[in-house]
């Protein structure tokens, strides 16, 4: 008798446990409250990433096409993956001495692990993280970028 009673009790407990779970899913089915998913490709125009989002390394240029990179090579030295290559030129400056300026700041996005060391260690704050995250391309070579824009020059007050 006791066995049958226990058996029936187990069945009821099982059903009530299933019901407890179904009630939650049912509740969210009829009243989702807040929508947590995003319609991603459709909302591209309004999609805003967080301001510190690490999408890629960029070199901000101002309206005169000037950046702050002196070509010192500290970021290249600090990058653990060799994602940065600095090519410099030597040009004579106004005092007649030769001066080192940046020729190409080459950034291999495909090798970058977004550790942030280059941005942190740059003494002139020339680098920053960009918000772009759609990096899919058909050719791997397109992931190698030159960060200083053509014809850009060093912002004078940034020079130490």
């Amino acid at each position, binding site marked *: 008798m006791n066995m049958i009673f226990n058996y029936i009790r187990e069945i009821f*407990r*099982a059903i009530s*446990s*299933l019901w*407890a*779970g179904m*009630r*939650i*899913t049912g509740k969210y089915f009829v009243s989702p409250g807040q929508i*947590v998913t995003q319609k991603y490709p459709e909302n591209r125009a309004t999609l805003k990433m*967080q301001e*510190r*989002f*690490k999408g890629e390394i960029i070199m901000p240029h101002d309206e005169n096409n000037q950046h702050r990179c002196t070509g010192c090579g500290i970021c290249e030295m*600090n990058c*653990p993956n060799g994602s940065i290559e600095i090519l410099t030129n030597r040009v004579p400056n106004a005092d007649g001495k030769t001066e080192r300026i940046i020729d190409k700041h080459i950034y291999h996005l495909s090798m970058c*692990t*977004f*550790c*942030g*060391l280059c941005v*942190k*260690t740059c003494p002139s704050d020339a680098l920053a*993280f960009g918000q772009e995250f759609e990096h899919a391309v058909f050719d791997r070579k397109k992931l190698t970028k030159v960060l200083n824009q053509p014809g850009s020059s060093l912002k004078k007050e940034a020079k130490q």
Partner: protein
Amino acid sequence: MSEEIIKNIIVRENEDYIINMGPQHPSTHGVLRLEVCLQGETVKYIIPHIGYIHRGIEKMCEAITYQQIIHLTDRMDYLSAHMNNEAVCLCVENALQVEVPERVKYIRTILDELNRLASHQLWWSAFGMDLGALTTFFYGLRDREMILDIFEESFGSRLLHSFNAPGGLMHDVHPNFQKGIKDFITYFRKKLPEYDQLLTGNVIFQQRAKGIGIMSREKAIAYGVTGPSGRGSGFSCDLRKYAPYSAYDKVQFNEILYTEGDTLARYKVRMDEMWESMNIIEQLVDNIPEGDYTAKMKPIIKLPAGEYFQRVETARGELAVYIVSDGNKTPYRMKFRSPNFSNLFVMNELAAGGKIADLIAISGSLDLVIPDIDR
């Protein structure tokens, strides 16, 4: 105990019926290959084969500086990225005898616990899914998203933070940091009981977890099973209690212990740890002292010649970092004792003699992260 383990060394026989689970089986949570010997539906023995994503992180560390090592440790146990970072930072700081600011200690502890919460949420989601309850995956990830948003706001990345640096943090946390955490705790205190209603009480789940894969306390100690998996067997091994680091000596919390040692006990430890994590965060989040986000460090860190050791409690157990330095700016040898490695090899003991369906439940309850095993 050790004699018993030696006696248990597996001998393959010719007529054994062997199937491979993995390396790409969805239930193994990564590229792990389990060589499973079956007799009908009963598991005779399991031999784990590891190394499919061995990247040689320990060897790579010998060529790069201490600041650069941090970003590699993210990629071991990616769900405990912050704790892994912290282990290396603490080790370097201890070696240099640097006193980090109080603010850093508080923030690190909060982030540890947030990371643990996110990790346990993902584990809960995936564990339910392993056992056939797909719904849990959506609920767990919905709540985990809020933590990841807090991470993204402060560090710019969701999974692989690289937010610690020897001496402190990479940069200061976002001004919204405290508010975001408090909102999350209020929200999650309401949602966590739902987890219990959805899965814990469920009769199918109970039947599949109760009494399955029983690990005795002796076995847990013999195999070095730490973290929630060990604590489910009554092995009291919480380093936050026994070797407090950062701000863990300033907070009150309970070490969760269950003595049953079965899959359900390991499950319950993690569920209760989520409550404890929220308690710890609540004690700290309002009291974060003002101050610098990093101690003053030289740009090139050289550890004095010698050996250094540091342990932290990650979401899966005890992570130990061992550095041998010869005085250069790179370590001479770097060794990680990863929790998942030890937790994996107890699996044969737990699953042998059981059914193959139980093997999935057991591997889920051990909460393995394969990149941490292979390193």
